[in-house]
């Protein structure tokens, strides 16, 4: 009787969130030491590579701004080129970070703790990368402040609050602000830890960054409440941001865009792509910082892969439902757009999207595959490719043929389209590499609260 009971309780036991039986001191040492040693040549060569890519990106953007939008593939009828595609791509990636740090926090998913910091950093960097593209797309980025409602000498002529593009300005800037604040507030106690370990100039830098945090019980009590409030505010915020991004499309009367399914479909896709990016980055972090394997365990990776498969099937359902509604609506234009997507001149982009987003993640039905780092790394890359093509399909195939023969045309990518897309990874990865060696990459204080569960 006793034996079988203990066996039951053994099998019901959850796997530990932090392995290796860490003491508080171990946790502090493991995480902080990453910022305290000069990185090796491997790190610097990686940083040099992505930084060169970043410089290339700056040159590409400079040329686009100096010569004009004509350098990119935008034309009539495809007036929204890769600027909008890549903007939606990066904003979507940011969403997984907020999902992990805010939504999973509210649902008391303790496994989120050790990946939350890096996922949030990814959010901040992805939103920064994304924010540049709409500005570039305006063609005259030096007038971008016209997007904001400020008292001016033209009337004052206010912005049109009925326009989804203005909603986007509000949503993305609020999202960027709140994400940065949430990320930073989470780091304040860890900065104090780094301050107390450091000497010389580093002590001053982390001292300023820690803002004079003292860690009294009263401080922690206020701090935990604020953290929860920020999580509770970020949760509807993150859902609103991608819903509003989808309104940019859905409020137009173009077949293929004008659908009510867009907001949930976009949010699911955003979480899908974001988790893809988190898995990609975490595989690399685990590879290059082996001691983090005790904090970002295979169980964490498996949980993320499950979410990738689930959200992948949700976007798959959305793809199928779009076809069904097109047929069911009886609208010739709607039906044609979807037939054109799957079998028209851009059939290849549609099938890249479906294969990467719906078919390939199905391998995660098998536990062995879910827990295999090499396989999940490859799948996560495919997820990222697939989600870029999803936005390509939505923008290009809907715009390139609509109601009028005059609005039929083709869209070709130029060198500058590729340059801006690939270069943006340079910016994102440069920021990420700088972050991982200078700031606490795992939440030191928060991990301690789940270390002995």
């Amino acid at each position, binding site marked *: 009787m006793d034996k079988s009971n203990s066996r039951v309780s053994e099998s019901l036991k959850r796997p530990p969130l932090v392995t290796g039986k860490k003491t508080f001191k171990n946790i502090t040492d493991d995480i902080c030491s990453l910022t305290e040693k000069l990185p090796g040549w491997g790190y610097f060569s990686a940083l040099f590579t992505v930084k060169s890519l970043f410089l290339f990106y700056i040159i590409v953007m400079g040329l686009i701004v100096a010569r004009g939008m004509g350098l990119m593939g935008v034309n009539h009828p495809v007036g929204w080129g890769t600027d909008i595609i890549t903007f939606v791509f990066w904003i979507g990636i940011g969403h997984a970070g907020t999902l992990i740090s805010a939504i999973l926090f509210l649902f008391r998913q303790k496994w989120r703790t050790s990946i939350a910091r890096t996922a949030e950093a990814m959010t901040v960097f992805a939103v920064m990368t994304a924010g540049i593209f709409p500005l570039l797309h305006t063609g005259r980025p030096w007038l971008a402040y016209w997007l904001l409602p400020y008292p001016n000498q033209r009337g004052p002529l206010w912005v049109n609050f009925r326009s989804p593009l203005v*909603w986007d300005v509000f949503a993305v800037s609020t999202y960027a602000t709140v994400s940065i604040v949430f990320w930073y507030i989470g780091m304040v106690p860890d900065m104090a830890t780094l301050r107390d370990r450091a000497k010389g100039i580093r002590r001053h830098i982390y001292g300023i960054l820690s803002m004079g945090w003292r860690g009294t019980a009263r401080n922690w009590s206020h701090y935990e409440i604020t953290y929860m409030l920020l999580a509770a505010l970020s949760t509807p915020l993150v859902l609103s941001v991608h819903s509003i991004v989808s309104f940019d499309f859905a409020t137009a009367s173009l077949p293929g865009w004008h659908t009510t399914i867009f907001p949930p479909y976009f949010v699911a896709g955003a979480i899908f792509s974001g988790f893809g990016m988190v898995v990609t980055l975490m595989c690399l972090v685990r590879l290059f910082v082996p001691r983090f394997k005790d904090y970002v365990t295979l169980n964490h990776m498996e949980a993320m892969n499950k979410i990738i498969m689930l959200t992948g099937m949700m976007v798959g359902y959305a793809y199928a439902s779009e076809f069904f509604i097109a047929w069911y609506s009886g609208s010739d234009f709607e039906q044609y757009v979807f037939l054109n997507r799957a079998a028209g001149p851009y059939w290849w982009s549609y099938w890249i999207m479906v294969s990467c987003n719906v078919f390939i993640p199905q391998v995660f039905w098998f536990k062995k595959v879910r827990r295999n780092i090499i396989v999940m790394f490859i799948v996560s890359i495919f997820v990222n490719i697939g989600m870029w093509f999803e936005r390509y399909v939505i923008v290009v195939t809907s715009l390139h043929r609509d109601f009028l023969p005059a609005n039929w045309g083709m869209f070709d990518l130029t060198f500058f389209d590729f340059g801006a897309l690939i270069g943006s990874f340079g910016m994102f990865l440069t920021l990420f590499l700088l972050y991982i060696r200078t700031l606490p990459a795992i939440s030191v204080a928060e991990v301690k609260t789940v270390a002995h569960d």
Partner: protein
Amino acid sequence: MSKAAEKKNKQSIVNRFVDLLLQVKESLAPETEPVLAGIWSDEKSFLSAIKELKQKGYKKISAITPCPVHGLEDLLEIKRSWIPWVTFVFGSAGCLFGLWFTWWTSAVDWPLIIGGKPFWSLPAFIPVIFECTILLGALSSVAALFYACKIPSVDPPVLDKDLTSHKFALYFSLKDKKLSTEELEKELLAVGAEKVIQSDF
């Protein structure tokens, strides 16, 4: 301007900047008071020490911990934080501001017919109103946290460098004249403190 005067002027700019920094530092100087603190490195004995001290009749115990400790608020009788009220008030204010601003700009200050929609198109204004609510709610909560924790402050006193890593501390303000320092020190050691520090905190 002569070279000497130019040099002097330059110096005075530097001096003024340094003065400004010193002023900022002074205005952000932390409030301190003399305290007597005991240090623990084990969470369990730290928590049981609080219980023992409370049984012995000690009140106004304060603690420093490296991470939020479950149940510590109840033990130390810390009231629930008032910050949610700030969030609520400022979040509501953000909502009302968004409502007023979209209405005033679109229907009062310069009404324009756009897409045949009414001047006050409330459903279309909801996203902007919502974002104003969230932004003001979030920023005000953080401002309230700064106020409650008295941060930012420059160079706060550190009782022990390990208190942000793996050690725990209990401290009593020595402003309280009823407490005798020697007796308190004995008491702290008796309930298991590794060492006792008298310092400003």
